[in-house]
């Protein structure tokens, strides 16, 4: 075996030299997710891509419940600013460590009832199903309190019809699951226009809502 590196290796090193050092260590939640069910990463990133596309370019984005910030790169890519809030301290520390950028801000806080400004888009995925029904109205008030006049909201949550297939850990945390109808009704109390989408795995669609594994609702034109 020759000790000289092959031309292919030299060529590949030219590629890797261009990559810089972007390596990072994921936190507890996403390390667990990737160990236990790695394909879920695709599903979650697809939800974030959809939210980012609905939000559009050059907008200020607030994410309520950002956890370790796995969605931050996608949500902030075309945004002018990104603010992520979560009450999980270690998760926020991971987000700050992994996704530093001057346009990104992370806040460790229980966002319920708080306002962090008036944003062009408020995004909250996999959060509302963890909020007890008696506090649900506070969640919607919080969404409204953080939204600019012409802001849009994207809410994502697992469909109640899929609950039978959820993992025990998921089931334990889901205290307020929505059907497409209830999610739409709730959003319509805040907005004149609500658009409902379904998702199965990473595929977004507008098919029969009861068979959608995941629900995404986009709201705009807020009621006064």
């Amino acid at each position, binding site marked *: 075996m020759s000790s000289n590196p092959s031309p292919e290796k030299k060529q590949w090193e030219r590629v890797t030299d261009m990559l810089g050092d972007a390596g990072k260590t994921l936190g507890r939640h996403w390390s667990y997710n990737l160990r236990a069910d790695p394909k879920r990463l695709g599903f979650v990133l697809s939800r974030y891509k959809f939210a980012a*596309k609905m939000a*559009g370019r050059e907008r200020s984005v607030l994410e309520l419940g950002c956890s370790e910030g796995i969605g931050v790169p996608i949500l902030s890519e075309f945004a002018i600013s990104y603010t992520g809030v979560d009450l999980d301290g270690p998760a926020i520390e991971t987000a700050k460590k992994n996704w530093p950028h001057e346009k990104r801000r992370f806040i460790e806080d229980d966002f319920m009832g708080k306002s962090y400004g008036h944003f062009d888009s408020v995004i909250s995925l996999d959060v509302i199903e963890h909020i007890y029904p008696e506090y649900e109205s506070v969640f919607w008030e919080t969404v409204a309190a953080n939204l600019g006049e012409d802001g849009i909201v994207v809410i994502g949550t697992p469909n109640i019809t899929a609950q039978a297939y959820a993992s025990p850990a998921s089931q334990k945390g889901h205290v307020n699951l929505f059907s497409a109808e209830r999610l739409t009704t709730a959003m319509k109390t805040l907005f004149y226009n609500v*658009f409902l989408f379904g998702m199965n795995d990473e595929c*977004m669609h*507008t098919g029969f809502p009861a068979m959608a594994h995941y629900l995404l609702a986009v709201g*705009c034109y807020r009621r006064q």
Partner: protein
Amino acid sequence: MAPDQSQWDDVTEMMDGGPDVNLGKYIGYWFENTPRRALFSTSYYKFAAKMIGHGKRVLDAGCNEGLGTWILASECGSAKGIDQDGDAIQTARSNWNDPRVEFHEGDFLQLPPEQWDAVVSLDVIEHILQENVDQFWRRIVDNLSHDGIAIIGAPSLEGQIYASEVSKAGHVNLYTAERLEKEMRTYFTHVFLFGANDEIVHTGFPPMSHYLLVVGCKKRV
């Protein structure tokens, strides 16, 4: 008669109760020459219907033979289709005779405005001469209630090199996603852009989308 035959007769009897549906000159051409086009069109109309929701009154501007208008009517509640093509409107009327749907032969730009919950216009704007485009958008806006939504669909400019001669012949105003979105934003506060490849509606890289669908709401007044 074998028992399975009588059972099938029961099934077919359940299908009686309406006239047979005719494919006119336009949709007939699709089925003969570009049959997948019928699938794609149906998918775009279904997408529009889902964006609109239930219990709504919908105007379909440029309905042709009204297959899409019927999808909108049956999914959303009621719909009216308008088109300048008299033969197409006749086909539409003979096929979809139902209180939820009506058809009007005429020019959308001349139609007296009403307050619709939604205006859908698919494969129309690319046929509108540049000097009339502003009027087209204004007509859409004028035909919407304050919280009404507009859904406009058109083939993408980028997909045009693959279009058939007959398709290209009518296309005088083709859009990139960027131009369509930007133009719609001058008439609507909120605009959501979708792409479609074949029957799949998505939010992927716009320049590779074969077809464009934009949803606008909160009209500017």
